[in-house]
């Protein structure tokens, strides 16, 4: 990972952007639920203008329309992000009716705040279950499976509810060419929320120590096997 000159962000000139793995599974789950039960699905992101590409990607998978809370690329902490989403969800529900389910990734791949979904759920007064690997809608309630010691814990909560999901919930589909063409005609509602001051304020990013060490080469090909087993013996695993 390469930091930008001011150490406040990653150098992204040579990087591509994509939907994070947890969120990708959230999108897939929403598309599957609508395919099975009917209804409408909406995808929402808070991010710079370039994030519109990920909204198109989600619509190419089958999401019906998108909401883009546009930023200037500056850092938003978890509290501020959640507040902007709450406002957007309330406005959309006032215009188009309530959502039965709101999906979130369990934590964002980049900032890893572990809180946006729960904060939104609390503000909207909806039950929230996190880290889900299984979601089954049954009438007016939803059965949620969460990895736990020695198996899975099951929660059943009434809808409307907010759920945070993890990769492994499903295997997301690839977008089809017709899907991409349909996506280009779907609607993206953009707005520009104001960013409140961060109470978790980024000072700088640091590459942790311990990276960039050099492996001790024990050998090449199968003839290295005795040296490998000798190493295993030394560290006590055989």
């Amino acid at each position, binding site marked *: *990972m390469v930091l930008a000159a001011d150490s406040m962000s990653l150098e992204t000139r040579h990087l591509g952007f994509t939907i994070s*793995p*947890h969120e990708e599974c959230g999108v897939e789950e929403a598309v599957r639920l609508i395919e099975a039960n009917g209804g409408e699905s909406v995808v929402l992101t808070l991010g710079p203008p370039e994030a519109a590409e990920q909204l198109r990607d989600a619509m190419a998978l089958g999401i019906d329309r998108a909401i883009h809370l546009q930023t200037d690329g500056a850092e938003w902490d*978890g*509290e501020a992000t959640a507040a902007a989403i709450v406002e957007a969800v309330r406005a959309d529900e006032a215009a188009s009716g309530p959502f039965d389910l709101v999906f979130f990734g369990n*934590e964002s*791949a980049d*900032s*890893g705040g*572990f*809180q946006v*979904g*729960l*904060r939104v759920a609390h503000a909207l007064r909806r039950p*929230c279950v*996190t*880290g889900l690997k299984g979601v089954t809608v049954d009438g007016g309630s939803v059965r949620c*499976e*969460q*990895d*736990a010691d*020695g*198996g*899975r*814990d*099951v*929660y059943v*909560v009434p809808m409307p509810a907010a759920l945070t999901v993890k*990769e*492994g919930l499903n295997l997301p589909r690839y977008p089809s060419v017709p899907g991409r063409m349909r996506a280009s005609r779907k609607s993206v509602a953009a707005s520009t929320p104001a960013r409140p001051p961060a*109470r*978790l*304020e*980024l*000072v*700088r*990013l*640091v590459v*942790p120590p*311990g*990276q*960039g*060490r050099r*492996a*001790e*080469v*024990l050998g*090449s*090909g*199968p003839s*290295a*096997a005795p040296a*490998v*087993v000798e*190493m*295993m013996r030394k*560290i*006590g*695993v*055989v």
Partner: protein
Amino acid sequence: MAPVLVLMDQSKASMETLTLARRFGGSVHSVRMDAIQPFAPDAVAAILALAANDLNASAVFAPGTDRGNDVMARLAARTGLPLAANCVDVAPGTPVSVSRQRWGGSLLESALLHSPRPLITVAPNSVPVEAEPAPIDVDVKLLLTQIEEGDFAVCVNDHMAAAGGKVSLAEAKVVVSGGRGVGSKEGFAIIEELAGLLGGAVGCSRVVTSAGWRPHSDQVGQTGTKIAPDLYIACGISGATQHMAGCKGAKRILAINADAEAPIMQNADYAVIGDLKEIVPAISAEIRKIK
């Protein structure tokens, strides 16, 4: 010095959490994750909020486990306070300085937490544990009577036990993982054989899961399982950031790879260069000789 409140569970991460919490200097008080049975995360958050008020706690800490982060985010939401998740270091003050994990720990963030009561979770496997006296248990019986019924609406209703017999990936002493270089679903037979001989677990990289060669439960990485074995053997794995975030808790890493310049070589302790399809069976044969 004002007291500090800590949410504790059975994990080693709880001991790491205590180590950082003691930096705040006051007496350390604890609420147990299993204070409410069956587990009801909103009710545990409510207990923490009540206990923090009763103690006038200077900060609330929890381990950065699934449940720890979940309960602390609920506490943050209900108290309207900011939360710093997965910290590896803290320095008390106004504001509190924290160092916290981003990108699953591939990067650290130095941040200032502006809060009258800092809420902090501690990243597992990130802090050297200092042995110190046990914390003081908070008596939750009185607090329980003050919790609203709605806080029990989300609770564990059932538990599905995993199929037995397999060594758990998260707890295995040795993990043998395969990546793209394994080539196919069937190619994992030699990985399974070596893991079996070492009493370890089989893992894989994200590309393997996406290809459908192994279930997601075998995936080691930022969005899979985070492991902390004594030895991690990465076979045919290039070492993408997403993967390394899952295995950096390993005490030692052995990379078996055809490419001596693969990124994983920068993060491994030992390497064997060559075709894993020849090397892995040769290691298994060598282990059989001494068993």
